């Protein structure tokens, strides 16, 4: 018996002997190769065009505040875009993650089942709203209604220098941050909720049996178990915020200036700048925009890498080896 089995497994390991297997192998291998080819093509294209643009750039590509890519000679830099993108996205994450974790915990551990299910649907629905709709809502509703909050922040938080406000439409990075926070709320909530739901009953009961209250159960067993999941969820949200285009372009009143106050209009983001400038750009202008897109791509990669590092470092203490 034992001596007869190895040849059989060896034969099937060697390759497809049946037609169905061969076809499926070909299909899946082909799909994999196609994906790699597409990725490579995009990378080559982006790098090549970006290299052309950066070669022609008369200003410092990384530190310059100007964007005159269509001028002769072209002068442009990504400093303002990088600042605006990172600041608005981080702001969105800071605003959204605590709320999302709260909603997720409420759905998974507090709400009665009758309420939890509909609430979940509403969150899903929020994720299905197209970003341009968010943009329109932001521009037509959020912007006019935020002046009150802005004035209040100027009065009480103005001393920090980050929140001074001198009137005018609230088309600032801060408003963009709020809008992005609302937009990434569903994905962060949904992923966190799923993670919290999977938190092992065993550990929850262990905490309960020690005399933990509901909040203590969550603190002792649910949150530690869900930590890496929440980090992944936040990074997914951050990724979406970094690349968000239409909503930002609709709300922000862009300028190539970095202002200390987040409440002052101005600034820009990579995606918004590309959307706004692509149609009117000449050939160097387009290459310059592509170069800025490449930077966005790199930033997103770094964010994902950092998230993986955080998760890997905590693996020993995660629920994975329970």
């Amino acid at each position, binding site marked *: 018996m034992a001596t007869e089995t190895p040849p059989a497994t060896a034969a099937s390991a060697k390759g497809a002997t049946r037609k169905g297997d061969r076809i499926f192998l070909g299909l899946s291998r082909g799909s994999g190769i196609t994906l790699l080819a597409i990725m490579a093509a995009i990378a080559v294209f982006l790098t090549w065009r970006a290299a052309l643009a950066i070669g022609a750039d008369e200003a410092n590509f990384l530190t310059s505040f100007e964007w005159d890519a269509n001028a002769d000679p072209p002068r442009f830099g990504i400093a303002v875009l990088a600042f605006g993108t990172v600041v608005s996205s981080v702001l969105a994450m800071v605003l959204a993650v605590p709320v999302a974790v709260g909603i997720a915990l409420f759905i998974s551990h507090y709400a009665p089942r009758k309420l939890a299910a509909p609430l979940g649907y509403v969150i899903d629905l929020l994720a299905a709203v197209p970003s341009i709709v968010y943009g329109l809502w932001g521009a037509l509703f959020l912007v006019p209604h935020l002046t009150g909050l802005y004035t209040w922040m100027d009065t009480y938080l103005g001393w920090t220098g980050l929140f001074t406000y001198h009137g005018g439409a609230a088309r600032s990075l801060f408003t963009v941050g709020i809008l992005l926070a609302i937009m990434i709320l569903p994905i962060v909530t949904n992923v966190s909720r799923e993670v919290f739901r999977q938190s092992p009953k065993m*550990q929850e*009961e262990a*905490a309960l*049996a*020690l*005399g933990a209250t509901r909040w203590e159960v969550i603190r002792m067993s649910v949150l*530690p178990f869900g930590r890496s999941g929440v980090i992944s969820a936040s990074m997914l949200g951050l990724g979406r915020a970094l690349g968000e285009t239409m909503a930002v372009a609709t709300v922000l009143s862009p300028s190539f200036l970095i202002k200390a106050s987040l409440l002052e209009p101005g600034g820009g983001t990579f995606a918004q700048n590309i959307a706004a400038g692509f149609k009117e750009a000449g050939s160097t202008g387009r290459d310059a925009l592509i170069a800025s897109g490449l930077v966005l791509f790199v930033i997103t990669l770094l964010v994902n890498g950092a998230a993986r590092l955080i998760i890997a470092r905590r693996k020993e203490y995660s629920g994975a080896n329970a």
Partner: protein
Amino acid sequence: MAKRIDVSGLSAYYGSFRAIDDISMTVEPRSVTAFIGPSGCGKSTFLRTLNRMHEVTNGGRVEGKVMLDDEDLYGPGVDPVSVRRTVGMVFQRPNPFPTMSIYENVAAGLRLNGDHRKKDLDEIVERSLKGANLWNEVKDRLNRPGSGLSGGQQQRLCIARAIAVEPQVLLMDEPCSALDPISTLAIEDLIGELKSRFTIVIVTHNMQQAARVSDRTAFFNLAEVGAPGKLVEIDDTERIFSNPTVQATEDYISGRFG
């Protein structure tokens, strides 16, 4: 320290399903009482009514009375959280908190009670681990995660965690069913030592184990699948295993069913 449990007319439900019916018994302090019976007879459910863990389950509710000395566990105004601080529990599968170190696992219950003094904690953690016969194996790696221990060590860690808060009663729900014979022996020895300090109730499927560790044995049975479980008889372990009053008990322990 250890308290007497006095149960009268206790029934437990899952929604409209009655899982156990009209159970009355007394569990003596500083003794080991074993619950035996076929699967589904409600012994685990009954165990979980003794620290109000049953009602955590969806639709779980209880009728009847459980007295811990003079205190009615189901009395009006009794907080289930404080009940669980006096009645500790060890589960079927070892469930240390995977994100906490060995030290933190043992200290977890004390921290819930608001005890944060480092010196006291060190002392209690050491005493509890010694009490659970685990100290010598882990004293050099108290800051390593508890999930890195073997199954038997994890279960003793859970026992250390449970006794660290000095409960009146220790409930054990098949504490050895996931363990190998050597680890099982270690836990059984430990139970023998712990009974001088605690009232211990243990659910087990292993009749030899019940015979080895317990002073009193309660046999539970159910008339048919879907019918509520009932207490058939409770008596001194020696008597249950040599000369039980009820025929069903004898059939069960002699392996004629179950």
